[in-house]
């Protein structure tokens, strides 16, 4: 085989390899620049008691999870039992953010109905009516879940519905590890 054929062959193989590698990447998984940084702040009204608010700073000193969901989101429904199981098993406070949903009276009570039917695993549910808190957290699409350490630093972001295997193999060990860290 002479060079005339070897060079194009090598170029082709390299390109094919690169494209094959590209296929294994999911373009929807945008790495969160937040991991390792302090959690974005919010002060939002509670779903059940709109006159009360919850802030990120209320969670200082605790390892906690932040779960963004909406009643119109089908994969949130799928992930809900996994989140419920995880929160029970690890006894971790999970703040739910009801993202652009119909949780308030003027919109109807879809979010409340959803929680009534599927159960409420949340430590607190806050309402983000206009989606601005969502953007503050860099939301792309619900569901999304963040894990914060005792210092309030974002340590992990899970994009998409949490499946049981991920809860057992990624989130549980992480929560246990973070709990051992200094506050």
């Amino acid at each position: 085989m002479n060079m005339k054929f070897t060079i194009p062959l090598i170029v082709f193989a390299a390109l094919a390899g690169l494209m094959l590698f590209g296929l294994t990447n999911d373009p929807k998984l945008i790495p969160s620049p937040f991991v390792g940084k302090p959690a974005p702040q919010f002060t939002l009204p509670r779903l059940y008691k709109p006159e009360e608010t919850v802030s990120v700073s209320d969670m200082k000193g605790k390892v906690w999870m932040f779960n963004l969901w909406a009643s119109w989101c089908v994969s949130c429904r799928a992930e809900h039992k996994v989140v419920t199981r995880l929160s029970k098993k690890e006894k971790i406070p999970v703040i739910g953010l009801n993202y652009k949903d119909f949780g308030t009276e003027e919109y109807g009570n879809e979010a409340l109905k959803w929680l009534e039917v599927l159960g409420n695993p949340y430590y607190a549910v806050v309402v983000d009516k206009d989606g601005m808190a969502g953007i503050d957290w860099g939301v792309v699409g619900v569901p999304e879940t963040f894990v914060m350490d005792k210092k309030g630093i974002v340590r992990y972001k899970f994009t998409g519905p949490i499946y049981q295997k991920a809860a057992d193999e990624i989130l549980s060990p992480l929560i246990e590890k973070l709990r051992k860290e200094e506050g």
Partner: protein
Amino acid sequence: MKFLATRLLLILGFCFFTLQANAVKIEFHTFENKQQEQLYLQLIAELRCVKCQNQNLAESNAELAKDMREKAYDMIIKGGSRQDVVKYMTDRYGNFVLYKPPFIAKTLLLWVGPAVFLILSLFFLIKLIKKQQKEPIEMLSDTDRDSVRELLNSKKD
């Protein structure tokens, strides 16, 4: 002539319809001055909708794009500069959100790649041309010519 005119009209009509179909409903905003408006229009053209990844904020009618436009507008109207908005978005979505990525080590290939490829291909092209000039193509001998003629004249279905 008349036929052509009808055709042209039809084509124009179709263009109009497709334009209509692609138009995205965009919010009506008022700005304090021309600079703010310019900045807003520039930013929504340069920022990527992270939900529908092959569209910018201006082109996309995804809910998230609408919210991101709203956020950009909000920041601009409160006196935020271009850097403020870009920083806010990249802090949350990374450089991915920029259609015009910054010139950093990670994007080096992206920026200089095309130029390198152009120079390389020009280099090889010139080399090839020079080589061909040095080695002229061999002339056909008379026997070659005869065999070609024979081939061309032979009747074959």
